[in-house]
């Protein structure tokens, strides 16, 4: 048996860098495969289509009502600015998808991460390859974060494009009344997408942990979504203001600060730090649970 021509485990003497590069490339292959699986899955493609449709619906609705003169100011600062500049379609759409659609999209993929493989039985074959359990969680989580970023990005980009098509462009008057150039405003939209990706990465970490607890993907998805909704409900009860700072969803709306000038980074930084803390906690829980779990599915 000549195993050597296919399985090259031995790092060549004098070329440790090449060996470690090769190993990294091979890790990258699993990650690419995982991300490819997430994006090739029809269910997930349908989610992206729905997310892209939301800004289009918003833009068309605003266009129609503004033309007939019934356009009102009760839609919030973002909505009322849409007729001034199309870029606000992107921000408005992010605001609309934030409470439910975006958390749902992330709950579905993250809740499915481990429980889905366990449910199909493919988990045992991955582990027998072997894929280290820590490596599996790492690859799954990175794919979840990439997915969360893609979801927020699809909303922003669809909003940007339909905004360009239906509404004026040019200088953008921010919420604080200061005008910036259109490219500067696009950059702020990109920052907002990045911020929301970190917010959704918290849901992804919670979902990954829940996903290690069950072999029923739907249960993990529903539990994750229920937890994020609970967080939002608690955040909306003034009498519970003492715990608001401890709720992950408390920091979500701060993405609107990216449309103020000067940028209120203090608020944003607190949100980012709290989110990173949550990510570390739930990733650690997922690892503690999964690393010595009996896989009998």
């Amino acid at each position, binding site marked *: *048996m000549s195993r050597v021509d296919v399985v090259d485990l031995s790092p060549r003497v004098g070329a440790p860098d090449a060996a470690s590069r090769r190993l990294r490339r091979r890790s990258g292959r699993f990650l690419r495969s995982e991300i490819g699986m997430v994006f090739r899955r029809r269910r997930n493609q349908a989610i992206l289509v729905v997310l892209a449709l939301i800004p289009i619906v918003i833009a068309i609705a605003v266009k129609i009502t503004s033309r007939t003169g019934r356009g009102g100011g009760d839609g919030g600062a973002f909505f009322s600015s849409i007729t001034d500049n199309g870029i606000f379609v992107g921000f408005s759409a992010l605001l609309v998808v934030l409470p439910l659609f975006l958390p749902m999209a992330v709950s579905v993929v993250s809740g499915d991460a481990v429980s889905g493989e366990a449910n199909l039985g493919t988990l045992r074959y991955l582990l027998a390859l072997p894929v280290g359990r820590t490596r599996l969680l790492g690859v799954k989580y990175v794919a979840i974060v990439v997915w969360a970023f893609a979801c927020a990005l699809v909303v922003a980009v669809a909003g940007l494009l339909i905004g360009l098509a239906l509404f004026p462009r040019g200088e953008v008057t921010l919420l604080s009344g200061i005008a910036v150039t259109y490219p500067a405003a696009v950059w702020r939209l990109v920052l907002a997408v990045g911020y929301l990706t970190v917010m959704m990465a918290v849901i992804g970490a919670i979902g990954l942990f829940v996903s290690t607890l069950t072999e029923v993907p739907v249960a993990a998805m529903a539990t994750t979504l229920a937890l994020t909704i609970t967080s939002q409900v608690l955040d909306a009860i003034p009498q519970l203001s003492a715990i608001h700072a401890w709720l992950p969803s408390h920091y979500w709306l701060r993405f609107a600060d990216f449309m103020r000038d000067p940028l209120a980074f203090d608020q944003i930084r607190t949100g980012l730090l709290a989110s990173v803390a949550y990510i570390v906690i739930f990733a650690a829980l997922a690892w503690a649970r999964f690393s010595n779990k009996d896989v009998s599915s």
Partner: protein
Amino acid sequence: MALTELSASTDLPSLEQAVLAVSSAGLTKRFRGGQVAVDRLDLAVPTGAVYGFLGPNGSGKTTTIRMLLGLIYPTAGTHALLGQAMPAHAAAVLPRVGALVEGPAFHPYMSGAANLRRLDAADRTVDARTARRRIGDALERVGLTAAAGKRYRNYSLGMRQRLGIAAALLKPRDLLVLDEPTNGLDPQGTREVRHLISQLGTDGVTVLVSSHLLSEVEQVCTHVGVMTVGRMVWQGSLNELAAQQRVRVRVETAQPAAAADVLRRLGLDEGTVADGEASAVLGEAEPEQVAAALVSAGVGLRGFVVERPRLEDVFVGLTGEGFDVSG
């Protein structure tokens, strides 16, 4: 090499590990409910053997295989694959082990080839540049080339089983652990898998193949281990098993009492007398010698049969029940 010799050399663990592809000592799995699925199992699969891992459904074979591969953790005991302790050296040893555990499992919405690509991508010990060729070869080896692009969802049970075997053959292996590989296959497919196993055995790959049907593996095995209710009741080479067989001689005659008398005088044990026949365990005696003694004693012979028990009967004797009965 005979297993009895190996187990005697306990003072030479390194030798033992070098010769055994799979070994375990006191391997035990107690589930949370308190049920003991595997009870102090001492498994010994010599390198190069085709080891038939037999036992009724529910006897603990799959739980053992899951422990061997590090999927579940033993309550007590140790085990090693290819001479390296598990699960400590899983990263080094599992790439050399191909496995089919409790039936195939793949993503239903992906094609057979895409599923193999997925597994191959997750394996950090293989070269991506050879992936296409290796996947093609594996599919060809199990006869799935024509169905490679078809979604797994639309595969028949037999095709799924074949894809599972293809996944185990994605790269050269030193050890294959195949749990019920012929499940769901038609007689033609069963024959093909059996052929594949003996071919792999000839190539020097150690194969551990579990089955609840002795007849499925009897023709390809060099060694067998028999489990029942979580315990190993017998293990060793088929030659050793054959040596243990108790061959009986059966005499059909009108004078059964006289015949039984002759058999007893020749030193044959466990004699029985029935209407029109007498029988006893042949033991060291030669059949020719027995026949001659009967004739010279004036026993009229109607028939003279030397009965070798079928292997199936030996196993039913060991497990105390039919092989299809769940334990």
